[in-house]
């Protein structure tokens, strides 16, 4: 017992100050790729390299529509390597959680040169502009109730709906002394009946569809669902196939999406706190050169 106490005292406090102070990440950490659409001469090489199709393009006549979806991104950094002129840069940003799936999608429209490279940037849009207003306001009301009821304390039930277990490793880390999620009054519980929030990972396999649905139904109202990682948001590298449904919102309604492959513990914290209204969404700059 004495040894245990001695070790504890010697170790001191190791808990991070995030989110009250910014997270310390390493200089080599690969976070959000940022796109300088004006500078970007050609989206095709990056799209060719992208393992999950997070970058895609479609030509109509002499124009091209380029789409970037952070919900599919596995943060491998190949798009930056494939794009000259530093039009795509890897940043250290990881706070990408959002309540709006559409806001993870950027689009840019270009007119084209004869060789297929971009000539002029004609339009950029961040997120889906035409989100259904009614759905939004209903969602906002529900969120308000939930924030009132659950804002101070929260019980989470985690469900792995077919993940590779990478997300689980980072979720488990939330309980370690470094990230210590209990300091926010948030804890993981064993039963959905005790839970306010369902934290779901994985592309949702056909074999987990029913188990996920049953777990969701077993939760009392009001309840929140957070989809974790590229797989949870969109199916990630697995996408949709005979065995994979391609994302949590194919089965249950999702309140907050946390991009990452896997999202680091601070990103998970940000998403969870965002869902209960204790943090706001981060806006990131789409035009770093300006």
């Amino acid at each position, binding site marked *: 017992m004495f040894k245990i106490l001695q070790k504890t005292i010697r170790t001191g406090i190791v808990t991070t100050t995030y989110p009250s102070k910014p997270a310390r990440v390493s200089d080599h950490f690969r976070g959000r790729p940022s796109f300088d659409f004006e500078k970007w001469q050609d989206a095709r090489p990056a799209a060719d390299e992208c393992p999950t199709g997070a970058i895609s393009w479609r030509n109509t006549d002499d124009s091209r529509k380029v789409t970037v979806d952070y919900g599919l991104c596995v943060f491998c*950094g190949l798009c930056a390597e494939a794009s000259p002129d530093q039009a795509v840069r890897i940043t250290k940003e990881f706070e990408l959680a959002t309540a709006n799936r559409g806001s993870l999608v950027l689009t840019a429209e270009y007119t084209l040169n004869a060789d297929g490279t971009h000539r002029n940037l004609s339009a950029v849009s961040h997120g889906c502009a035409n989100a259904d207003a009614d759905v939004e306001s209903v969602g906002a009301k529900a969120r308000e109730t939930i924030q009132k009821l659950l804002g101070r304390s929260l019980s989470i039930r985690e469900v792995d709906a077919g993940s*590779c277990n990478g997300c689980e*490793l980072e979720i488990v880390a939330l309980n370690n*002394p470094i990230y210590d999620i209990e300091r926010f009054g948030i804890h993981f519980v064993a039963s959905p009946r005790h839970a306010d929030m369902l934290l779901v990972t994985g592309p949702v396999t056909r074999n987990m569809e029913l*188990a996920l649905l049953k777990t969701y139904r077993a939760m009392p109202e009001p309840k929140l669902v957070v989809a974790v990682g590229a797989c949870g948001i969109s199916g990630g590298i697995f996408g*949709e196939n005979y065995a994979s449904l391609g994302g949590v919102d194919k089965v249950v309604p999702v309140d907050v999406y946390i991009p990452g492959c896997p999202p680091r513990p601070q990103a998970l914290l940000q998403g969870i706190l965002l869902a209960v209204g204790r943090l706001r969404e981060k806006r990131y700059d789409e035009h770093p050169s300006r």
Partner: protein
Amino acid sequence: MSLSTLFETIQEKFGKQIQSMHAEHEDQAYIFMGDPDIRPITEYLRGEFQARLVSVFAEDRRSREGVFFNYYVFEQRGDTQFLIVRAPVPAADPRFPSLSAELPAVNWQEREIQDWFGLTAVGHPNPRRVALHDNWPDVHPLRKDFLIDTVLPPFEGERHIYRPALGEGVLQVPVGPVHAGTIEPGHFSFAVAGEPILYLQLRMFYTHKGTEKLFEKLPIHKAVFLAESISGDSSFSHGTAFCQAIERAAEIEVPSDALIMRTILLELERLCNHVADIGAIATDVGFVVANAHASRLKEMLLAANEQLAGNRLLRGMVCIGGVRRAWGAWQIELLRVAIEAFTREFRDLVALINSSESTRDRLEHTGILKPEIARDLGIVGVAGRASGIDLDVRRDHPYAAYPSFSFKVPIYQAGDVWHRLQVRVDEVQESISMIREAASRNLSGQFRVPVPPIPPNRCALSAVEGWRGEIIHWIRTGSDNHLERCKIKDPSLNNWPALVEAVQGNIIADFPVINKSFNLSYSGTDR
């Protein structure tokens, strides 16, 4: 005699059944049989050579060669070469003789072939579905005429029939697929009489996501990222196994500095997982303080991972032809500092655990896997080494820079939770000294070579000792930068049946710690 020099003997003995034999790459030899019946040659190899059957898998070659093939991968202690026996399974009469009755180790693997290819394992003692759940329609996803994006009708309920547990006072306790902790999904059905467990039935493959099929769809350079997602805790090991297979098939020579960097990262992955498991085993018997320290130690390593690879799980670092980025002197220095700090702290952690009599008392004689059972079930990796199975791919089939490092392979006979913990403690020490030595080498040379077009129709096998055990990837390249087939074997697939044996007679409250001491990957199993 070694396996690699046995061609003549085999020719003499099985001449009539043999189509051809050849060596491919430096560490693989193939025997092509003309006859589906591989029982005599299997018996001969196992008897005469004490060869171990490493893996059994199938391939649909109907469109090219008119048949299915089954592959039987053998290894012999002391011989670095794998011997791969290929037997045809006729398309018109898709049946092959089962080996499971004599060799329980291939029980699940043969049933996977049944489910995924629609070939029947004749004489299998338990031929029920394993990889596709009982509520799936009659489809065989790895057949070439099954399209990956086939939309199957919705599945209704669980139709699996568990073996009933009968007798006075005997209860059946169903657990999962959604568990109480933050772990992966699987169903455990315990039969208990009071507290002791009489019998455990497993139902896996809840996380089956069509991975092997998907390998046939993705271009090869993108498939590296799929390999990293086979089992998140083994991202770098699976990624490396995959890249090695491609490099072998395309005869790409990886620069020696890249091999050393891979070795460092493979050992870092081992350290991260071992120290986390040591903490988790302590937690499961109530010693939470030890886990607090262990998870802090793991975070130290994850920070180093991020400095070296840009990602805490070491993703996006390995690539075909080497590694994706070079390391500066400051990164090596940072690694050295991290390892020294980790070494000091790890010593304290082990002392802390050893100082707790009650922890040791709970772990000793708990969840015993007897060596003879481990041998029959083909148990590999940490769990095998704690039960007398002396296997380690790093030593037996050296890859990366392992030939230039010396390390001990810890072997224990007791097979209980305590000794599975001990194997991890010993291996952490070995990994530390390997990383120390590797970090002292000059790594300023070439870290990657350009990748030529991958030639079609080449086969290659690659083996890596992941932190959990033996990882096998086997590939056949196709045209246009695609694969025809990619077979993945995670050590978890071998080791699940060990859990069934190890829990018998233990109380149900000890199940979590016994399960944790194996710490198998559901995703790696289910793919």
